[in-house]
């Protein structure tokens, strides 16, 4: 038996061709297991992003293949006061809305974390603005802020506080306030519910220990809740900033960037230039100009998350 087995094993070894070896190579197999995910990412993420950036270096218009024009689009934008206005608007919109969303969201989360009747129902209700389709809520706001039929103007008039309708969406300052308000209304639930989830991971015994250590309610928040919540705050605020910075639907449904471009964000301006006006190259350049801002926002939270040594594993150094 052994005599037979040995010669038979030998030719098999020498026959061990590339294919058999590859079949047992972990890296080769691993590569193929990764292919579906990679294809998915390349097709749906990398390709559109790459195409967008490429378009921004061409003079493509709708219906015409463009030529590579280098940084011409960007040079144009550099001298375009409307573009700079949209950058200012976007930064204002993002900063004010995110700051207020954070403050209100944290307040709501702390409130909902207390013991109170109908807790589950209240928590569900907070989510309502988040689940209503954006366009629907934008239409509702549009109606609420309408120059003639605004319920706010109507109420204030009947209370005798004002004599004539406030031109909410027609006045530059009012329009900015209104869209920021609508964005806050929509964004608060996300912040509140995520922070609430974070709050619930804090062990109640930590508060008890701190109370026995002599902490007041404020000190409980300052020294226990807030530091333990910072990782979640970093994540939720990064997302909130990204969503707000790239916001499009709300503005487009409420003001289309008006009045006099006072509410034009980079996203809406890009859409207007690329799709409405057909200047794909220029629109793509405006969109691509958002990338540095978004990267900066991600970097801030990335380094914010990096610092917390206490979260890291059980290593002893």
């Amino acid at each position, binding site marked *: 038996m052994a005599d037979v087995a040995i010669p038979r094993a030998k030719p098999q070894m020498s026959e061990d061709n590339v294919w058999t070896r590859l079949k047992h190579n972990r890296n080769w197999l691993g590569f193929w297991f990764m292919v579906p995910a990679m294809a998915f990412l390349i097709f749906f993420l990398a390709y559109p992003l790459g195409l967008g950036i490429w378009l921004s270096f061409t003079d493509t218009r709708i219906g015409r293949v463009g030529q590579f024009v280098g940084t011409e689009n960007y040079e144009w934008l550099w001298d375009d006061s409307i573009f700079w206005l949209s950058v200012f608007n976007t930064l204002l919109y993002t900063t004010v809305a995110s700051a207020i969303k954070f403050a209100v969201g944290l307040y709501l989360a702390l409130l909902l974390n207390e013991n109170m009747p109908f807790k589950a129902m209240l928590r569900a209700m907070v989510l309502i603005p988040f689940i209503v389709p954006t366009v629907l809520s934008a239409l509702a706001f549009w109606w609420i802020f309408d120059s003639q039929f605004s319920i706010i103007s109507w109420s204030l008039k009947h209370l005798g506080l004002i004599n004539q309708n406030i031109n909410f969406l027609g006045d530059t300052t009012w329009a900015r306030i209104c869209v920021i308000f609508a964005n806050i209304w929509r964004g608060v639930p996300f912040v509140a519910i995520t922070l609430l989830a974070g709050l619930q991971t804090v062990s109640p015994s930590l508060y008890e220990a*701190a*109370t026995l*250590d002599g902490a007041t309610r404020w000190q409980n928040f300052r*020294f226990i809740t807030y*530091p333990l919540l910072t990782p979640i705050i970093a994540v939720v605020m990064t997302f909130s900033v990204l969503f707000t910075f790239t916001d499009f639907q709300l503005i487009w449904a409420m003001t289309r960037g008006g009045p006099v471009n006072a509410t034009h964000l980079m996203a809406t301006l890009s859409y207007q230039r690329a799709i409405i006006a057909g200047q794909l190259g220029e629109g793509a350049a405006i969109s691509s100009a958002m990338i540095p801002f978004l990267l900066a926002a991600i970097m801030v939270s990335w380094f914010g998350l990096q610092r917390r040594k206490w*979260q890291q594993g059980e290593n*002893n150094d």
Partner: protein
Amino acid sequence: MSSVQIRDVRKSFGNFEVLHGVTVPIEDGQFVVLVGPSGCGKSTLLRMLAGLENITSGTISIGDRVVNNVQPKERDIAMVFQNYALYPHMTVADNMGFSLKLRNAGADEINKRVKRAAEILALGPLLDRYPRQLSGGQRQRVAMGRAIVRDPQVFLFDEPLSNLDAKLRVAMRTEIKELHQRLKTTTVYVTHDQIEAMTMADKIVVMHDGIVEQMGTPLELYDKPDNQFVAGFIGSPAMNFLKGHVRVNGVATFEGPNGVKLPLKTAPAASDGRPAVYGVRPEHFTIADDGAEAEIVVVEPTGSETQVFAKIGGEQVVAVFRERHQFNPGDKVRLKPDPSLVHLFDDATGKRLNA
């Protein structure tokens, strides 16, 4: 340091009363262990002492001061939690110094006191670590360090050892007891583990269903349990109970299950025919010719002793022998309880009948 008086304390959650008038006097410097099965109200009582739960009625005083309406932070107590409740985002040193920081103590003062506590608990090399980087036993010590730093009137421990493995638990038990002997701070310690209670306490308070069943030194409780609950709760393996009747005709005996005769030293007054429960600890059995007939079921040697499970009159009992008998399952032996060490309880109320 100071004494603690718990007087007729009751606690209700809604309409549900969990503590039905508990009175526990605790002397200055005493180590008192509240022990009982889960749900007996021991942790609730400790939390009321800490100020984490309201007192429904009755009074708790620390020193001369009734603390019912005193804020937890003004009670001058320190508590060690079951899960340690270390602040995960603070180093060991910051964890220990947190209470001093809240009281606006100077950095030097905090440093000095943290160092001293760290010395007592051998935590010196760990001061800059975060709780995540510590083992269970080290976390436990940090939790105690946090209590020591405050130099409080009373230490409270809420099942501090239940998250540790068996070996570490025994080591920490000794460490806590030694610490108490050194610091002599009044300590109230809650546990469900009667061995912890027996080994550590100056005074044990056995609680059950919201009342105090018995208070006393560990050996008092062991030798003279007031009732069947305490008798069964204290001691391991647990005391054997046999139901039957007291018989007095010349000599007092106990008629156990299926007419088994068991010896009694004296019978309680007017007790012929009285239904009762006969209690005997496993180590109080001897092999004797005039013992009750028993059939061996299981033999469990542990090295230092052997636990023998046997049936007397159809009821299973456990006996512990330090000598090495050659027993096999199915063997018939005669087990004799030491009559001067047996316990007799009322069948209905569970109250102790013999002196």
